């Protein structure tokens, strides 16, 4: 790393790449979200709850996809909050070409759109499909697996808020253990959702050997945008799994949406990584590691772990999940002591002057 006479980094940008924007870096390296010209794919007036992580995540993803595709993009949307809060007939918040399918068939519909475009010779138009975790890991799972198997040319984005939120917070295959939902009440010896069940769809997607699989959260915009941009540059089936906190379903303050997502990654409970053709290629290292308890404490869905009495046994099992992630993905790896520029995908640091999304080196 280039340093000054006193050993300080030559490039140091105050907020590094953590904040949405940074007036000190080259405009070409700035985030999509910081631009006045961003697409605002999901515009104001939608009916999402205050502080909705899914609404935020969808705008982050689609704005980046719009920039990457220069606006030539078709979106297919499964039923779920994202569809219901954005498009109550005859009104819509979408400012992209957008198609609503059913709860369970967005991957199949997207496959069809891709096939139709191919038949029309429109290889300049890309297809992005999106759905909630219920639509993705549960009811739409067969269609998704088929899409992966055929390597259909679709970027599929799952917004994981850990439950069927639209219909009133029921458990899904992505609900974490011990979380309370309407169908996993905080009663009995093992309150909340059971341990040992559920589906890790990013890893299942990797097992399909698709070109690209990545996870991300709404707490790390630069990482998310870089992943969308990279995914949009590839063809075939690509899968992006985005953690989007839900203030209503998680029992969090509406102002804590980004914070709680950040704690999910900083505790290791939600691993952020990317994989190509079934192999993990990069991970986002933890910056300031925290015990999983810090993540749990903010959430009403885990309140029973602290009241009326503390459930250290359950907290320890959740901590074990985080520890296992940290081990499996090497999340505790070298943490950049000095952030010198916008972070590319999964924490790779790029220097000023490097192309957006370029992966350079670790400090």
């Amino acid at each position, binding site marked *: 790393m280039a340093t000054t006479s*006193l050993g300080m980094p030559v490039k140091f940008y*105050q*907020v590094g790449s953590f*904040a949405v924007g940074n007036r000190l870096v080259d405009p070409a390296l700035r985030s999509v979200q910081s631009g006045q010209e961003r697409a605002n794919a999901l515009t104001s*007036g939608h*009916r999402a709850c205050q502080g909705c992580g899914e609404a935020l995540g969808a705008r982050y993803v689609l704005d980046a996809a719009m920039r990457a595709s220069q606006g030539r993009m078709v979106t297919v949307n499964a039923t779920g909050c994202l569809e219901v809060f954005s498009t109550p007939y005859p009104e819509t918040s979408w400012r992209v070409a957008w198609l609503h399918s059913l709860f369970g068939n967005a991957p199949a519909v997207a496959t069809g759109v891709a096939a139709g475009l191919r038949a029309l010779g429109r290889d300049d138009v890309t297809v992005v499909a999106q759905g909630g975790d219920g639509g993705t890991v549960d009811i739409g799972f067969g269609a998704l697996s088929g899409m992966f198997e055929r390597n259909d040319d679709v970027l599929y984005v799952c917004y994981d808020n850990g439950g069927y939120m639209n219909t009133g917070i029921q458990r899904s295959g992505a609900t974490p253990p011990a979380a309370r939902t309407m169908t996993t009440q905080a009663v009995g010896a093992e309150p909340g959702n059971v341990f040992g069940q559920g589906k890790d769809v990013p890893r299942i997607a990797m097992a399909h050997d698709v070109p690209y699989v990545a996870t991300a959260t709404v707490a790390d915009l630069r990482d998310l945008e870089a992943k969308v941009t990279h995914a949009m540059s590839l063809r075939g089936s690509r899968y992006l799994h985005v953690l989007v906190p839900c203030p209503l379903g998680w029992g969090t303050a509406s102002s804590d949406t980004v914070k709680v997502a950040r704690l999910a990654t900083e505790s290791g409970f939600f691993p952020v990584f990317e994989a190509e053709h079934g192999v993990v290629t990069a991970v986002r290292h933890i910056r300031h590691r925290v015990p999983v308890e810090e993540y749990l404490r903010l959430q009403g869905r885990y309140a029973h772990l602290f009241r009326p009495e503390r459930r250290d046994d359950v907290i320890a099992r959740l901590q074990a999940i985080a520890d296992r992630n940290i081990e499996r993905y090497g999340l505790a790896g070298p943490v950049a002591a000095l952030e010198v520029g916008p972070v590319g995908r999964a924490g790779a640091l790029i220097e000023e002057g490097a192309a957006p999304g370029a992966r350079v080196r670790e400090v």
Partner: protein
Amino acid sequence: MDKPFAITLDVGSSLANHTGAWRVERPVYVELEPPCAHACPAGENPQRWLYAAEEGAYEQAWRRLVEANPFPAVMGRVCYHPCQTACNRGFLDEAVGINAVERFLGDLAIERGWALPVPEVTSGRRVLVVGAGPTGLSAAYHLRRLGHDVTVRDAQTAPGGMMRYGIPAYRLPRTVLDAEIDRLVATGVHLELGARVGDVLDAEREGFDAALLAVGAQLGKRAYVPAGEAARVLDAVTMLHDVAEGEAPHLGRRVVVYGGGNTAVDAARTAKRLGATDSVIVYRRTRDRMPAHDSEVAEAIEEGVRVTWLSTIRHASAGRVLIERMVLDETGFPQPTGELEELEADSLVLALGQETDLSLVEGVPGVSVVDGVIEVDDDLMTGRPGLFAGGDVVPAERTVTVGIGHGTRAARAIHAWLGRADVRPGVAPDADTAADVGTASDVGAAPDDGVGSGGDEGAEPGQLGAHPLTGAQVPGADAAGNPPVATFDQLNPWYFADAPHAVRPRLEHARRTSGFEEVVQGLDVTTAQYEARRCMSCGSCFECDNCYGVCPDNAVTKLGPGARFRFDYDYCKGCGLCVQECPSGSILMVPEVP
């Protein structure tokens, strides 16, 4: 219109749906006072100029700085930087090196020859400033900026006061001091040197409309130390003065300095440089109670100065002093033990504080002197109308920084005083005739260059309570409109990249004691910029775009570089995410008022 099968309504945008109606609290952009600015006795707002320096706009940064303080290169060397003590970054890792960046800007300005604006004399008023120390020069500078005709008189042959005759050259090179004073005088100040003012009333009779006493504290305190006839005893102020004049006094090889303040440390370090093999400070308490600045004590010890703690001097004779050991009682007060010890000493330097020579106000009606200093009101005016005083002659902490701040305040107060219709020195004006004139806040309100958004566009420092762009009053502002100070817990430190403080290089030891070369070196340009970028912009938007980014409702409008942001209350649901994720604490949530 033909619609597809089963479709009866036109497609509409959700923009018709004003979700702002859900809100019970609303976010508002605020401009809080940064702790650094709150703590600076010279009235600087470091955040404002650091902001420009972060972008590499050094001249702009310097111009913002000198709106308050015309001595950045001096300050960057001698200020004890209370701003850094207050800096919120200290809670994260280490305080921002504000002082080092200030020096960098000051040195760059000298190197590049940047000049201060030369204002016209527009008021037709003449002001006399007695004393060309930091207090008097700062007042002269601000009075010039306010359009007055200013004369500064000093008894010495060169200006600067204790900056020249007290602070040694290894801490403040005279080329730097000269450059900054010359630049200030060039704004049209009439400087009269070798011009001791014997009686301030005489001066008043020359037709000045107001006068400021900034004569400092020039006399070394004469505490009684019994001494034999052959003992060589001198006071530190005189000794340092003589060294500054190039007349190094004869001290001998073994020098004992008595006292625990900065002057004592400077005297001991100077003695080393004059060739003393032993330079010993005798102080009656312990190091943690020593009033001298810790970094200077550390530097002195590095240079070989020794300190004998918990000791007082009982007697001085030729070649030796007798010291008595002390112990601290429960209240921390030193008590004698009766245990005596001898120290070899060719000379004894007394550094027991300074006193003021106030003969020039003797018998002046209305002026009251208590405990050797002049009594003043909140406007720094003495009991005699039109006669002001500041710096070391009034009860306050005695530092260059406080002096500069007093100069600024006195200039504002004099300006307000001169704006009255019937101003006559020595006569209290009739309150009814007070005209509506420029006030204190005019100082420093020179038009800014308008780049960036350090929170100053159109705003005057005295009006910090109002948001610079919207003009809205900041919640929690005091009666005078001053906004609350931004505390660390209002920030979101996650966003600030980890970055340790850049330490200023120091001269190697060997070269330190052999001469008066400057000990602490400056930062190079990249390091200065790095250090500036460590600022967290407490309580002031620095356009990180977080609020614009994190709003799930797209209810923040980005107005473009320098123009910051606006909430779109038609759609803001009041979730508070923007408030939570604002790194600088520049957004507050306030109750929605029906």
